[in-house]
């Protein structure tokens, strides 16, 4: 029975041998599903790579990409002499690391918690509610935070005052500001991040849990010895991807929350590039910064991928 089933399934080893054409015909409907994604990548990910050359040119809109003069590494040299850039780079790394430590696991923790909820309707409701904030725009969340965190009229400080505390100007102090950046990002993204883990947990064979129960394992032991090891591969993939976006600390969020009091400490590469690129039309320079950022991101992905293989996991590729 098992042997028969295996025969039906496309054997990965066999795929390489059958011709591409016969495979395309055989799985045409599956490949059709892939088409929109491929088109998206061509238009939005591979197409723009052509434009990256303006990082090495003095780009003028009217002259176009082709007509603008080559200037070599000029913009990169300027970047490393630009003290603001050095500062925003460290800000980015700092905020990203905090997010990596606190936010990346939040999706996993939420998925594990939801997994323990036995009531089906309640579990669905809880995961829907936690996922909802993902669809809110940061422009909206930003102004809500400004209102509820205000020391004079905000809800949070009203509670603090009620218990006899002194109001805190959350958005005016760097550490509090970063605290709320992390907390609001967690609130916004934990539900969404949990989806992939919920799916991975759902794929674990119930046989394993049964066997563990027979051996006398409680829920905690089942979590440690069944659930976590079974989704370890997923966890690693998610971590590799998160590390790979290390240089993105969340443009929308910071841009909609920061102010003059904390700006020098929370200004990140993306907000700086936005101000220069869009607001001051320095296209070449901001492209150079963006390119630099992506090179670092790629290097980090390769490194963590290698690392995950070293510790015996599959990694991304």
């Amino acid at each position, binding site marked *: 029975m098992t042997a028969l089933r295996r025969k039906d399934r496309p054997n990965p080893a066999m795929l390489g041998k059958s011709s591409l054409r016969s495979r395309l015909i055989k799985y045409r409907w599956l490949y059709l599903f892939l088409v929109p994604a491929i088109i998206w990548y061509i238009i939005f990910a591979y197409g723009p790579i052509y434009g990256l050359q303006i990082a090495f040119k003095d780009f*003028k*809109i*009217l*002259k*176009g990409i082709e007509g603008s003069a080559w200037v070599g590494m000029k913009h990169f040299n300027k970047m490393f002499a630009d*003290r*603001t850039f050095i500062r925003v780079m460290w800000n980015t790394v700092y905020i990203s690391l905090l997010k990596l430590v606190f936010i990346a696991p939040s999706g996993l923790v939420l998925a594990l918690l939801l997994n323990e909820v036995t009531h089906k309707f309640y579990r669905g409701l809880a995961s829907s509610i936690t996922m909802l904030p993902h669809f809110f725009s940061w422009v909206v969340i930003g102004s809500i935070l*400004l209102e509820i965190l*205000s*020391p*004079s*009229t905000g809800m949070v400080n009203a509670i603090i005052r009620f218990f006899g505390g002194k109001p805190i*100007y959350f*958005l*005016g102090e760097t550490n509090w500001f970063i605290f709320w950046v992390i907390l609001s990002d967690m609130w916004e993204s934990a539900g969404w991040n949990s989806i992939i883990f919920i799916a991975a947990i759902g794929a674990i064979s119930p046989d394993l849990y049964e066997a563990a129960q027979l051996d006398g394992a409680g829920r905690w032991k089942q979590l440690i010895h069944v659930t976590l090891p079974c989704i370890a591969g997923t966890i690693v993939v998610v971590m590799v991807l998160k590390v790979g976006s290390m240089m993105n600390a969340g443009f929308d969020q910071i841009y909609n929350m920061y*102010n*003059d*009091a904390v*700006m*020098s400490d929370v200004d990140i590469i993306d907000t700086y590039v936005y*101000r*220069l690129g*869009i*607001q*001051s*039309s*320095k296209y070449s320079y901001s492209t150079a910064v963006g390119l630099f950022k992506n090179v670092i991101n790629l290097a980090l992905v390769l490194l963590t991928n290698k690392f995950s293989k070293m510790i015996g996991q599959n990694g991304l590729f």
Partner: protein
Amino acid sequence: MKKFLSLVLAMLLVLSMVGGALAEEKMTIKWLAALAPLEDDSWGEKAFEETFGVDVQIKRAESEDERAVIYASGDIPDYINMGNSLNAVANLVDQGILRPVTLDMIKENMPEYYAMCTALDPDFFTYGMVDGEIYAVPRYSATSAPLVGTIRADWLRKLNLAVPTTVEELTEAFTQFTFGDPDGNGVDDTYALTAGGGSTTSDWQRIYFPSIFGIYNVNPYYWTENENGELEFGFVSEGSRKALTLLADWYKKGLIDPEFVTTELRTSGTDVASKFCSGKVGYMDCLGFDDYEWDNDGHVSAKWVANSPEWQAFFSSTTDTKVLYQYDTTSDFSEALEAVGPYYINMNPVKDEEGNTGSYPLEGNVGAYLCFGATADDAKVAKIMQILNQEATDEETYMLHFGPEGIQYLKTEDGTRVFNPEYTNLPEYHPQGQILGVGWCLYPMYFSNPDLLTAVAGDRYVQRYDRVLPMFRAFPSFDNKLKASLPAAIEYPEATTTFVSNNIVKLVRGDISMDDWDKVVEDWMNNGGRELTEQANEWYATVK
């Protein structure tokens, strides 16, 4: 058959030639304004095409990002309204998007406008220059006025204080405003002043305490002349050091609302004017003259009335505009206003510690830079200039800004135009006229001609332009001495903007001590300030 075919071909040829001639007759102008009509073929667009005999193709962009997309597409508009930032003009010049014009072109195509502006300010047409060439026709702002310090008269009365005339008296009044319970509710819930740090605006000079810097005759974002006759950037001048020392001291004493960093400049329900009018603070200084007049419509006035039952009773007591718009703004205690209800005083600048008179920052006389796309030829530029000239100086054309008679304005029996009080209830109503396609959409020369400010008259506009505006303009004031765009300002865009605002906040809050002032100045010098100062003085030497 052959004959027939050749006949058809000949006819086609003739037709196409006629068609070509017809198409040539009407020039198409691609128009990128501050605002765009919501839909094509609006009343304003048709009136524009009819009046000037051109085809206008409206470009739409609601933000700088969307404008950048239009430029990047290569389809460059012929007319581009660049708002009031000359650095933004210089950016586009650097990108090759704008074309220069000559003074002769302006003189030839805008004779009336040229005569009018140069009579008011002989150097006016040099203000749109970048790298020694004219890239913009500046729109004269006939309503430019200083940003004036405004104080709650009812609080002064309650605390038995005179209108402050010196910085010591001001400090005393501010201390009382904060700790003397000026609103009489028995709770320590008031501050003396706040600022609109939570806003993103291109009007940087308005954001942080302009009237307090004004005590020392500087604005941190304006260039000023120092005692050596050299240009100096306001933020690093001695005046700013004194103003910041004073502000840091006030902040330490708790006189300044700590939320001045995140308070909005105008829009929200907790913006500066809202805090002032609802009695959270007793002093404000970040808005223009037309926000203050007693008409229940100016930005401050409307909020003030909303917070005052007495003024609400007054404004609902009659529809007689002679009565409604009778009150002037005041720079001292006023019995007339006191008889109605609580009021505010637009005060004279106070004297500094050494007895020198202060002044207020004037928002310069360039309302906007009107520019021309690089792909527009001379004929097209000439036509656009003629259009702008006619809009600015011909009363009938000027009136197109308001749309057709009977909607936004009416004509009274004696022929004066008055605003239609029912306008806001009409389906054509839009605060910026974007439904009719009028207003700033196609008629940018509004407010440019001092003689036409009361083209739509009526008591309310006589109050605003004939009484309040002159009073504000009479306050001692100073302007930005730099009237050119510096190449270094393009290279270091943050040095004259974000760097300044970040550091003002830190110095006022004490995050950076005033003892480290020299370090802040040095930091500014190293981040582009040295180049900026050098270039500013090079330019200054050419005009002095």
